[in-house]
């Protein structure tokens, strides 16, 4: 086992995979089943599928599709998007999903996180926070469904959701999404402070050294999208994943 997980984060729109740029302009990148099969062969440790339109369209997860994903997936699968109730989470777990990722519903109703954690154990509950910087560079909680930033201090929200029972935090740097320009390390450092549960950083990863930098800044695990699906200046779709020994060496150095 590697000291830090490196997780492909796949974005689902309808039945296809897309990749966004700063949460906008979803570009079709392929069939999820084939992508999962390729990641299987690449011996990826964990996979995350996020349905980016479920909450926006106010609908439930696409269970039929997720069942197919779970059936194809050799590695633990985390799913996020449109989960609002304990019953929905229950259904996802029964289909073979190992972790559920909650965002909109958790912000609306932190009690849901507590109920989920009590029922399924906090290790299987991820809360996801989208953070966007305003024109002054100030980090704020962002609601992707409405496209608005939310009032309040995001760290306070984060702490509240962890206190409510989240076993893991997915920290999404909206401005970095799809840019392949490196992580928002400052954000990771701030999130790490006083955080007792694993922190998964996502947004901006473009290289092995970016992964290392995110880990050094305090991320327990790193998720990435564009880095694993795009290649070169034309953003050519090509699925890649670092070799096990490359990641092993990466985390061995000076830690």
């Amino acid at each position: 086992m590697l000291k830090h997980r490196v997780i492909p984060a796949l974005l689902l729109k309808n039945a296809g995979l897309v990749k966004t740029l700063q949460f906008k302009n979803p570009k079709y990148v392929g069939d999820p089943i084939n992508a999962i099969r390729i990641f299987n062969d690449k011996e990826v440790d964990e996979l995350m599928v996020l349905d980016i339109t479920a909450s926006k369209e106010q609908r439930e997860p696409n269970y039929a599709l997720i069942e197919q994903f779970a059936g194809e997936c050799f590695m633990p699968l985390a799913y996020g998007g449109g989960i609002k109730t304990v019953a929905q989470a229950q259904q996802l777990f029964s289909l073979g999903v190992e972790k559920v990722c909650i965002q909109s519903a958790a912000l609306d109703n932190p009690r849901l996180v507590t109920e989920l954690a009590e029922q399924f154990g906090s290790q299987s509950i991820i809360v996801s926070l989208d953070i966007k910087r305003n024109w002054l560079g100030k980090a704020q909680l962002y609601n992707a469904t409405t496209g608005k930033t939310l009032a309040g201090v995001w760290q306070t929200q984060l702490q509240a959701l962890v206190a409510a029972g989240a076993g893991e935090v997915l920290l999404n740097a909206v401005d970095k999404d799809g840019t392949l320009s490196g992580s928002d390390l400052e954000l990771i450092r701030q999130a790490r402070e006083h955080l007792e549960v694993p922190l998964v950083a996502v947004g901006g990863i473009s290289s092995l050294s970016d992964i290392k930098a995110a880990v050094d800044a305090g991320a327990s695990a790193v998720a990435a999208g564009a880095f694993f699906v795009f290649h070169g200046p034309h953003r050519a779709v090509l699925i890649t994943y670092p070799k096990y020994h490359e990641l092993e060496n990466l985390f061995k150095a000076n830690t």
Partner: protein
Amino acid sequence: MKPNSNEERAYQQCTRCVMDTTASDITFDEQGVCNYCTEFLERSSHIIHEDPVQKEARLNALVSKIKEAGRGKPYDCIVGVSGGVDSSWTLVEVKRLGLRPLAVHMDNGWNSELAQNNIANLVNTLGVDLYTHVIDWEEYRALMQAFFDADVIDIELLYDNAMLAVNYQQANKYGLKYILAGTNQATEGMRMPPGWNWLKYDKKNIVALARRNGIKSLDTFPAIGIFGYIYYQYFRRNRWLSFLDYLPYNKFYALNELETNYGYKRYPFKHYESIFTRFYQGYILPRKFGVDKRKLHLATLVASNQMTRDEAIKGLEGIPYPTQQGIEADLNYFLKKMHWTRQQLDEYIARPSISHSAYPSEKATWEIFVNIYRSIVKGRYVH
């Protein structure tokens, strides 16, 4: 297995290559040598056994022309890549010769990890830019379904046609004259037997089969027809060249070099970079259409002296698949991707095949065009 030719004909295999009576128009001379390898050698010897000095001069002249035509442009040529040996080796040689290729890949939702890995290793090691065209899988699946429902043989017409279209589109986009392809005489120059495939520029056929299944338009599928071909090739002057014909090309040498220097992993059979191609050639073609394409591939390698006849005969033994479990795994994956049941597959395999020409087609137009072209430019080949 269903015989491809009429049933009375006794089985016979060529004594020089390995082609046999599953090719409906095969004939043999007194020594038992077939017309396939004979025609192949007549047509291709000047390429395969070309004087090395002459060949190099021809290559150098081409390279200078490509460089000249590409001056001031971000790239000077397009190289289509699939992850297979022919296109991979083309890319390696193109770079070695100092050309500046844009690698172009077409993704139809069936790429194997092996293919993706080979492409990634190549473009990274060689420092080549890549462009990928991804066809929406839901659209591609519907088109495949239309081809299955029509019981025509050349399901791969879809991939091949889209691939041709994407290469021409990219060449045109950057104003590039040259598309350097891995197609070649030495390892695949033998003529395809009638009925084993179909005209790859038959957009009309694709559209007709799509309509038949209620598909109104092609959205992300980049089709090309004969007029598209003529437009690109003769008006835009985008030239499609079988690049490996300009080089002494030995598949086994190329494989070794690719493995040693570019982290390449080989496939057990030709064209196995896509999971569907593997399943199509190893399962659908032999069972529904009585066609084993290995014969043609191996016969060509024998005729071009890259393999002995005994080796080829050994290569034909057993199932056209690495392992029996391999078939089962691919079969299940195929069912999952197509949303088919096992029974649907069995019914499809059991139905008789129908010729592409039973549906609207551009083949007749193509033949008229080729004849006119040949009569104007005698002795030259339209690929």
